[in-house]
């Protein structure tokens, strides 16, 4: 399998008013095409910062990172990824369809192409028929699905998701996790997924990256032995519980110095 994202000895220090903050230290990671990679760790461990480095939204202060063989900034300019933020961030003055068209308008797709893509991605996230609705008419979970559709609309091979379901309740979250796996299976995208939740990370990922804070670094990388096809009740299986244990141990190890 080909490498999509490669980070070598990545370092990032923020200069703040309270002095420098070492957000990422010596991060080495290789993500292959089609991987579903979760980044898990306590707040301040640099998981979001690392995702933003991949997206070219932050510039590392040391080390190397490539996305599709390019620098992250080149990849951003080439529109190599779709990014889903913690909040849906839909424009309240645009309909759901209008929101999904936003990146398509910016990237200069033709009107007919836009309409066709909106229809396709709405079906993909199970929101067919909601095109003409305004965001406030949808529930939080539906809004987040619409924002995923918006990130999928321009067919980037990489999908970066920063705690996309963090603000949703557990039942909605389970449902969206299931849908996300189906979507990943159908689109064969490479997904980078930041989360706080151990079950979410284990359920979704082919690769789990455990991180710890001060300075933000990787403490464990777990390649999941779970099959690609995962019903929700796989979470009661022995393998699932074993991986969850290992993740928890990794998180605890990172906390020793606290």
């Amino acid at each position: 399998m080909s490498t999509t994202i490669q980070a070598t000895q990545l370092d990032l220090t923020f200069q703040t008013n309270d002095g420098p903050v070492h957000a990422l230290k010596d991060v080495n990671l290789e993500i292959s095409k089609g991987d579903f990679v979760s980044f898990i760790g306590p707040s301040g461990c640099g998981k979001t910062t690392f995702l933003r480095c991949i997206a070219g939204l932050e510039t590392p202060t040391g080390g190397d990172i490539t996305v599709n063989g390019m620098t992250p900034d080149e990849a951003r300019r080439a529109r190599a990824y779709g990014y889903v933020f913690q909040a849906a961030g839909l424009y309240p003055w645009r309909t759901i369809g209008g929101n999904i068209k936003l990146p398509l308008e910016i990237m200069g797709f033709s009107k007919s192409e836009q309409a066709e893509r909106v229809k396709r991605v709405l079906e993909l996230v199970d929101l067919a028929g909601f095109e003409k609705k305004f965001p406030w008419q949808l529930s939080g979970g539906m809004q987040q699905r619409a924002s995923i559709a918006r990130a999928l609309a321009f067919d980037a091979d990489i999908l970066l998701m920063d705690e996309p379901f963090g603000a949703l309740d557990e039942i909605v979250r389970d449902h969206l996790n299931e849908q996300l796996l189906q979507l990943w299976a159908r689109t064969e995208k490479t997904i980078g997924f930041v989360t706080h939740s151990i079950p979410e990370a284990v359920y979704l990922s082919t690769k789990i990256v455990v991180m710890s804070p001060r300075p933000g670094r990787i403490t464990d990388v777990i390649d999941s032995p779970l099959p690609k096809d995962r019903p929700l009740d796989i979470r009661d299986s022995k393998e699932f519980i074993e991986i969850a244990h290992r993740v928890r141990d990794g998180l605890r190890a990172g906390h020793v110095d606290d």
Partner: protein
Amino acid sequence: MKSVLPILSVIAAILLFWVLSVIPMNMHLTADQAQRDGLVVSPETPAERQTYSGLGLVLKNPGLISLTYTLERPRLPSPHQVGVEMWDTIFAKKITSRRSLVYHGWVTLSATLLGFAIGTSLGILLAVGIVYNRAMDMSVMPWAIASQTIPILALAPMIIVMLGSIGIQGLFPKAVISAYLSFFPVVVGMVKGLRSPDEMQLDLLRTYHASPTQGFWKLRLPASVPYLFASLKIGISASLVGAIVAELPTGARAGFGARMLVGDQYGQPIVTWAALFAAAITAAALVGLFSAIERLTLRRMGMQAA
């Protein structure tokens, strides 16, 4: 429509206060007039009456109360006198007449609207400059604030005279003063509105590699619309005040300001009050119009009006 009852109650309270105030306010003038008409007034000389307060005189001459409402040149006109004058000058006079308030209203309104258009455009342009240009961000706002601390009553005659000396007269100088008052709320509101998108929404556009122009038209401008309307409603009433103030110091021959001045100079308070009320109603109508446009626009944009 739930607000009708409270509004009516407040209006009724104000009217009651007004009607009651008329009696002591006009009592001295009424007593003088009654004496000239041969009625018995106590005390008997105007000089003695001056030692009494309005209320004191009312208590001495309760029989004169009804006459306080019918003076031709009262100190405080009664509501019905103002009402009759307004009816007379708005509906009964031909609108081409020099005494028609509709004619005067149109003179002021045209200056108001022109000034408002200039002020709003200037305000939006300045706000865009402030948001996109660091030098303007650092420099423009203090001047905009300083401009509003100068009493417009002092500035208006200077502007009128200076523009007059270079041959610009009539509508435009008044519009300049309207613009001067109305650009400020638009600048303040639009700067806040254009800056209202949060970091996340700006980051989203960066992930699309959107150009700054696209960011302006697709994100910042639509996000600023609710702020713009809040500013427009303040700006339009400020514009009207500006146009009236511009008519006051220069002896303008037409406009609400001219009518107020005429009433003042020729001792016809009823004329002044009628012009004042007509101006207030015009302002309320303009603000109401913008509220309606706001509701319509925001509903069409999928956002509920604030």
